[in-house]
């Protein structure tokens, strides 16, 4: 492999110091002189007609500066997919879930704003409440959205190959049903924002978001402000995992009230509001029928999926496509048939969450593959290896595996966990399980139809040559993109990471679709690399004129100019630089011409040196309906082995060890790659064992706190053995592709398979609480 100076290292994060010391400022830390505090009135009912809204008492409360409802906000529909704009800032005719936004108040302090909210009187006429798929799809059920009778928010029907025909060639055919539970994003930082509409009619919104670009467009569209006058800035963000990837009603309300009052307006979600806003993982129910030939060839798959969508669409249209398209690979599966239905219910809206759409399907299928392997008498690892795709293979739904280190991943975890010595040989109560998975490395298309670049980047050198400023609208949300993009810029330009200042998360810095679908490293990385190469070229061209050395004979590395042939006499340039900086402490010295001197020359001869980069994916596969969801310039993949202990008298599962291998193409920062692997595993472990958003019979979230909604604690995480596989992705910058989401795919099924190995029961419903597992074991004993 090529030797690099900055990338493929373990450099510390550029935001590490600020975060470790508390110096980093998040949206909730922001404040401004004269700032107002906003609060929202949200529906206490899951489904009701709004008969009347009386805001008079709230308006009279001293300290209140603005009270807004749909009358002030208007009736513009918005959402995520333009084909399904089904939300308004505030409800006008009816409310569709407990938490639906009805009104907002801005006041001089939060206490006053909250009191004013409690003074708004709404008359409701209650409607039948539909809390699950069954009642929402029932004959004669009331339509939650008038335009969608039957409450089907979206349906997908796809067939690749011929499922029915293929079954005839199969030796084993089995059908299993699998269901997960609605998850919460569980990020540590609740959404927060500060909106400021200035005297010239420019709006700036600081917000805890994964995508400044999508928020900017939505704010402009909904509030009718020219997009050029809307600037969205992302301060430090404490996690997103999907739910922060689109605009929310709070952001829109803050902008609206700032425009009306002329004052900055700040709003912050409580933890309960995070649960009400939701937009996290759906509940999926998959019925999976898999056909396998006698020799163990996986030959056919039929997947019927129902999604409990909640009250609005959000990312759900993409979710229902992903729930079908993310099966198949990484196995050579020639026949696949998919029917998916996303159903509206009177619950908070579900959307995207890490491993978007594919996690439950993967869990159910990888468990089923284990069952089939056992029926065939094959080792689960051998069975998977036999069916594995390789680099260059294309799936039946036209995903091009332009690099695929899947075999290396599986062999890596097999050997790294000492699988051979353990599988089938552990004492009762202890078990080992394996699973695989893959994921897109950036959505191939924007969420709205457009020819736009997905990422742009600009580099501007300081006039003294000493600093490299990188501007990108990408979103550092904790995953480490600022560090990765800084490293890419430094490597491509030939300087050190310390020389690069990363300015990100601001619509004034360019276009970037944001942090979702595991796209920042590949897509923003490309743009940054191009910008750095453009900058380098400009510096070298200027230098070439001065030194009479052809550009091709020069390079920049480690902060100095590399002369591939004879080193010219550059003393004139050095003298010039030293003279200009008389009295400065850090004059260039030594035998090499520094980047700083070269960049200074470039400035003097050509003005500010600016390099630009812009990326969008090339031609992608798939001409069928829905091909836009799942096609990607590259795919990451992973395998995991999990070892568990099951306490047979309590049902308690303890995860003893995890071995995880992920093919990220090329690790720009090895520590960051491992961090994403560990974080994915932790989230998968939580979904497998603990997490479930629960509702009471009126549709209220029953556990809207991190006390009763259980994400794993540090003490629940075992030590993880991480193995990085690098398959050198041709479509990625320096060969890099995703790790942020794909790594979660095998976690749940590996746990399920390990539990089966330990105690011989199969669980088809998450989470695998002690109680559920205990009941399953009890049931088995009875038989």
């Amino acid at each position: 492999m090529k030797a690099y100076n900055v990338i493929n290292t373990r450099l510390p994060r550029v935001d590490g110091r600020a975060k470790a010391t508390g110096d980093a400022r998040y949206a909730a830390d922001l404040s401004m002189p004269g700032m107002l505090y906003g609060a929202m009135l949200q529906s206490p009912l899951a489904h009701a007609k709004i008969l009347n809204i009386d805001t008079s008492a709230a308006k009279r409360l001293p300290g209140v500066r603005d009270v807004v409802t749909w009358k002030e906000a208007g009736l513009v529909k918005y959402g995520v997919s333009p084909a399904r704009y089904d939300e308004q800032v505030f409800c006008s005719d009816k409310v569709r879930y407990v938490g639906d936004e009805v009104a907002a108040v801005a006041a001089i302090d939060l206490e006053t704003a909250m009191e004013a909210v409690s003074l708004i009187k709404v008359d409701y006429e209650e409607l039948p409440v539909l809390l699950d798929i069954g009642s929402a799809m029932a004959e004669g059920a009331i339509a939650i959205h008038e335009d969608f009778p039957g409450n089907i928010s979206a349906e997908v029907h796809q067939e690749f190959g011929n499922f029915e025909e293929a079954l005839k060639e199969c030796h084993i055919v089995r059908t299993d049903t699998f269901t997960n539970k609605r998850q919460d994003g569980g990020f540590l930082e609740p959404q927060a924002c500060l909106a400021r509409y200035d005297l010239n009619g420019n709006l700036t919104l600081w917000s805890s978001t994964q995508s400044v670009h999508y928020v900017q467009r939505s704010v402009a569209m909904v509030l009718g402000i020219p997009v050029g006058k809307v600037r969205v800035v992302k301060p430090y963000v404490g996690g997103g995992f999907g739910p922060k990837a689109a605009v929310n009603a709070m952001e829109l309300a803050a902008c609206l009230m700032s425009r009306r009052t002329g004052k900055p307006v700040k709003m912050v979600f409580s933890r309960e509001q995070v649960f009400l806003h939701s937009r996290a993982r759906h509940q999926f129910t998959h019925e999976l029928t898999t056909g396998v030939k006698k020799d163990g060839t996986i030959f056919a798959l039929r997947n019927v999926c129902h999604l409990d969508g909640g009250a609005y669409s959000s990312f759900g249209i993409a979710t229902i496509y992903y729930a079908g398209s993310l099966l198949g690979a990484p196995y050579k599966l020639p026949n696949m048939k998919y029917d998916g239905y996303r159903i509206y219910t009177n619950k908070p809206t579900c959307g995207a969450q890490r491993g978007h759409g594919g996690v439950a399907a993967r869990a159910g299928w990888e468990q089923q593959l284990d069952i089939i392997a056992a029926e065939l008498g094959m080792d689960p690892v051998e069975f998977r290896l036999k069916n594995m795709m390789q680099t260059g293979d294309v799936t039946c739904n036209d995903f091009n595996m332009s690099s695929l280190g899947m075999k290396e991943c599986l062999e890596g975890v097999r050997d790294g966990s000492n699988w051979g010595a353990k599988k089938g040989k552990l004492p009762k109560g202890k078990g080992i399980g394996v699973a695989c998975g893959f994921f897109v490395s950036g959505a191939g298309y924007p969420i709205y139809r457009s020819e736009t670049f997905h990422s742009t980047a600009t580099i501007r050198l300081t006039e003294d040559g000493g600093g490299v400023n990188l501007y990108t609208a990408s979103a550092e949300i904790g995953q480490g993109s600022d560090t990765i993009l800084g490293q890419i810029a430094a490597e491509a330009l030939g300087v050190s990471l310390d020389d690069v200042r990363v300015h990100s998360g601001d619509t004034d810095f360019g276009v970037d679709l944001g942090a979702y679908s595991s796209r920042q490293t590949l897509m923003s990385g490309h743009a940054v690399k191009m910008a750095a190469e453009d900058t380098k070229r400009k510096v070298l061209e200027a230098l070439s004129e001065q030194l009479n050395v052809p550009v091709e004979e020069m390079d920049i590395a480690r902060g100095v100019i590399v002369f591939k042939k004879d080193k010219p006499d550059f003393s004139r340039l050095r003298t010039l630089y030293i003279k200009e900086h008389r009295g400065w402490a850090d004059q260039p010295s030594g035998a090499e011409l520094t980047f700083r001197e070269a960049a200074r020359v470039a400035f003097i001869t050509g003005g500010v040196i600016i390099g630009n980069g812009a990326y969008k994916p090339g031609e992608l596969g798939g001409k069928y309906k829905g091909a836009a969801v799942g096609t990607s310039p590259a795919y990451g993949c992973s395998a995991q082995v999990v070892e568990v202990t099951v306490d047979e008298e309590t049902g308690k599962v303890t995860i003893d060890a995890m071995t995880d291998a992920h093919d990220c193409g090329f690790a720009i920062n090895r520590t960051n790659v491992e961090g994403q692997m560990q974080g994915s595993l932790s989230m998968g472990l939580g979904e497998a064992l603990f997490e479930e958003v629960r509702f009471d019979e009126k549709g209220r979230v029953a556990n809207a706190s991190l006390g009763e909604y259980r994400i794993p604690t540090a003490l629940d995480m075992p030590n993880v053995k991480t193995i990085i596989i690098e398959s050198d992705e041709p479509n990625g910058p320096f060969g890099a592709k995703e790790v942020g989401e794909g790594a979660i795919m095998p976690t749940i099924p590996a746990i399920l398979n390990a539990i089966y190995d330990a105690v011989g029961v199969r669980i088809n419903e998450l989470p695998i609480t002690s109680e559920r597992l205990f009941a399953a074991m009890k049931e088995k004993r009875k038989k």
Partner: protein
Amino acid sequence: MLLLPKFDYEEPKSLPEALAMLSELKGNGKVIAGGTDLLVNMKKGTVKPAFLVSLRKVEGLREIGGENGGLAIGSHATVSEIADSDRVGSMFPVLARSASCLGSPLIRNRATIGGNIVTARPAADLPPALIVLGAYVELKGKDANRTIPLDGFFTGPGTSVIESGEVLTRIILPSAPPFTGGDYIKIGHRAALEIAIAAAASRLTLDKPDGVIVDARVVLSAVAPTAIHAASAEKALIGQRPSEELFAKAAALAEGDCSPITDMRGGAEYRRDMVNTLVKRTLLKAFNDARDMKGGNA
């Protein structure tokens, strides 16, 4: 948004000063120790004290010291101090074990033993262990003091016999007879930050290492409105020679002693099943420790 309501805050320098203050405040004042229960409840609006009285400047309330061959623990000793105390660990390992499964390391650094008792949660971790150890609580008021058994202190979820002007000052653990052992086990979902789905504490005293059971205490928590004795299990154990069959019988009887409900943390049936498992396991450990005298006092 849960906002902390406005309140006044006092830090009296002596106990008499504190008691006078509380008596004057009538019901409007509350003691704040670690605040891990109180502040949460104030944010939720379930308690609304106008004054909080902190005893952090009052000397002697954090001490863990010997008393008549047993131990006296100041009400303001933190749960982590108790979990980490060598003295507690060697004399009353059951208490140390229950302390080490309360909340999380961070919560344990703030939470106090006094707060855990007075708050009177049905699933609190320390009371079951303290009850099997035969703990007394020392309550001081402006005009009167009393020392009463913890067994009988609780009257329902969140309620106890403590009166509004009273302060819990010390928890007294009498020395245990020879050949005594005990155990505490809690079942939760996660490895930390769990309110018990079910928990049990047991203590057994034998007349001699290979003798019969002369005293048996089995206390269950999170399966009734307060921590309760598994009375029929206790009765079945006393006078008997310990064996796995005996413990299984006692465990089955304990199932009948509790009245669990189904809530978000767990179903009634599962809780009942867990009572069986926990009673069996704690008795076995108690017996082994009693026989080996490994458990010190209990």
